[in-house]
């Protein structure tokens, strides 16, 4: 199984009464009042240091993503972060940009160009993430008409894939992108193109797109593996219905993970930061969470009939004490043994071969984040990396230029990082 350290890049110092004073963590948290560029300058350095450490520690991949006007993730351009990582990751981890929110770019040719640049700069270590994006980012921050979200995403996807695989120049006459001369320099290094990773939240169309186009499907929620069952189940049912195999490397999911010396020490180390995340970073009122029209008619019907909104409300309103968070799987926490056991259970249950490990959570400081990364790399990765080995699947969606397996020197590498 692949272990990917995924960094959300949160603001780590929101005021203690943030959730009482402000409407939302996303879209409207007032920037001049809350976001101090001096602190942000420090955070970006820490964020990159933490990702670079993960490379040296032997993680298989490093993940970054895109959000806008968001206090739990202020990585407006993940491509800038990936570019910084390209030159400072000697252990050749895959760089997973999960991803560029396609509907926001017009012409979407920009994404084809920047991803191709990153693929060349990393010698083929790029996984190209194509998320539809959240309604907050797409409809509210960037003003895209809700009912155009999916059509713009689909058209951008078609344009990018054509730009990567068909010799230019050619004409592209789309509804939103009208280009007389499509001929981007460069095309990607990986052939036929970098592996495409989709990120979804339970839309029927995204499951079908992943299966039909042979892309990975990644469920990036913060509610953990128990909550993920319904969505991942929907993906695997779609795969079966469309006659696709059940190679676990087709799927990934995000999990918040806290590793310490013992189970008790984990609560002591991380409770404050995890509480910060669930109370402040997920403070989003329902009307802002999803604009009507963002999901298609079909996916809205599916979501409402399968109780998705109710499930989210139920999860969001649970009291987030340590026991609840652990018991409901919001976090997987404890000693390396405990964490490895629960991850194996979770990933086997969801049938995922790509663990997107959220190891910097909320207000977690730089030193504690390094501890979490180090204990995960040394104590957890060796226990979970062979999870799917007995089934003999090939990972067809791992970037061609990236290290294909964690090297045996991974643990030795950690002493460098820890020095």
């Amino acid at each position, binding site marked *: 199984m692949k272990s990917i350290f995924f960094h959300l890049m949160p603001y780590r110092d929101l005021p203690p009464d943030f959730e009482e004073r402000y409407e939302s963590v996303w879209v409207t948290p007032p920037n001049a009042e809350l976001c101090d560029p001096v602190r942000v300058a420090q955070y970006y350095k820490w964020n990159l240091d933490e990702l670079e450490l993960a490379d040296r520690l032997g993680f298989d991949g490093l993940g970054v993503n895109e959000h806008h006007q968001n206090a739990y993730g202020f990585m407006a351009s993940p491509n800038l972060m990936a570019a910084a990582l390209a030159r400072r990751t000697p252990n050749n981890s895959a760089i997973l940009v999960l991803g560029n929110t396609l509907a926001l770019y017009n012409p979407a040719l920009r994404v084809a160009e920047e991803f191709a640049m990153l693929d060349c700069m990393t010698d083929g270590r790029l996984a190209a993430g194509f998320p539809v994006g959240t309604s907050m980012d797409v409809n509210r921050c960037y003003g895209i*008409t809700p009912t155009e979200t999916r059509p713009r995403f689909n058209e951008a996807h078609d344009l990018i894939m054509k730009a990567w695989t068909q010799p230019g120049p050619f004409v592209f006459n789309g509804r939103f992108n009208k280009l007389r001369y499509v001929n981007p320099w460069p095309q990607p290094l990986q052939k036929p193109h970098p592996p495409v990773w989709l990120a979804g939240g339970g839309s029927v169309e995204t499951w079908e797109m992943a299966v039909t186009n042979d892309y990975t499907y990644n469920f990036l929620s913060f509610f953990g593996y128990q909550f993920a069952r319904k969505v991942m189940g929907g993906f695997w049912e779609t795969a079966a219905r469309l006659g696709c195999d059940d190679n676990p490397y087709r799927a990934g999911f995000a999990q918040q993970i806290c590793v310490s010396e013992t189970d008790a020490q984990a609560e002591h180390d991380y409770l404050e930061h995890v509480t910060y995340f669930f109370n402040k970073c997920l403070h989003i009122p329902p*009307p802002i969470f999803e*604009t*009507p029209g963002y999901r298609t008619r079909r996916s809205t019907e599916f979501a*409402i009939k399968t109780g998705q*909104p109710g499930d989210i409300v139920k999860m969001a309103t649970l009291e987030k004490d340590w026991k609840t968070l652990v018991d409901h799987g919001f976090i997987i926490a404890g000693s390396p043994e405990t964490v490895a056991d629960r991850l194996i259970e979770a990933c086997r249950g969801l049938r995922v071969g790509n663990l997107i490990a959220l190891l910097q959570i909320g207000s977690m400081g730089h030193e504690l984040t390094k501890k979490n990364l180090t204990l995960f790399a040394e104590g957890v990765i060796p226990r979970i990396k062979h999870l799917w080995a007995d089934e003999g699947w090939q990972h067809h969606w791992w970037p061609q230029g990236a290290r294909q397996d964690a090297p045996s020197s991974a643990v030795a590498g950690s002493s460098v990082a820890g020095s």
Partner: protein
Amino acid sequence: MTAPSEDVVELLDGKFKTRVLTAGEGPPVVFLHGAGGLFWDPFLDALASRRRVIAPQHPGSGGSQGLEHLEDVLDLVLYYGELFDVLGLGAVSLIGHSFGGMVAAEIAATNPERIDKLVLLAPLGLWIDDHPIPDISTLDPAGLPALLLADPGGPLAGLLTSPDVTDPEALFQAAMGMASILQFIWPIPDKGLNRRLYRVKADTLVVWGAQDRLVDPAYGPAFTAAIPNARLEIVDGAGHLPQLEQAAHVIGLVDGFLPSR
């Protein structure tokens, strides 16, 4: 109230199916509803006593289908042209409320010869920086009476209910209805109408509630300044639903303004 007849009209080989409420006899007037949806209310009922009132439901909401064939405001205007043709309407009077008022103004500006009288009830469609119109997709249902009514404690408050969260079909219909409106006003309900209003030939009556806290009455003069033959009536004791909150007064204004039998 009399019950209107209810029909589903098919356009363009079934690409569109439009739910239409109709009542009354006499010169035709078409009513375009706002984001709250289509209801046969005392205002429409009173108008129908002296003319034929035709109230279509906006595509993609309630019983009307075909939203996926429309991309922008021009498509919507052309769709209404087709609907009016299929309904056998020649020259026609047009009333629009809120979002429906914006659409009515667009139709009147694009088809100036067809629309003989135009009534705009607190229309959307213009933007004044000093009077921003709230984002209607994030309104708190509990706050709707205070936002939409001059008298939030009055009898109309009971009509401004949110969908039952335990009823999946109601939630679905509410989401689709809102999505069908947002498609034409997102993210700001200014799609260039101000550049087109000079084309309106119809005599125009603009009605605004003095206590409209959703779309400020300051928009009233902006409409009358841009439309060649327009007058503004400010209705005291009314918010964003003047035709319901001060029904007798607004019915009197509109009834006297429109052709009748």
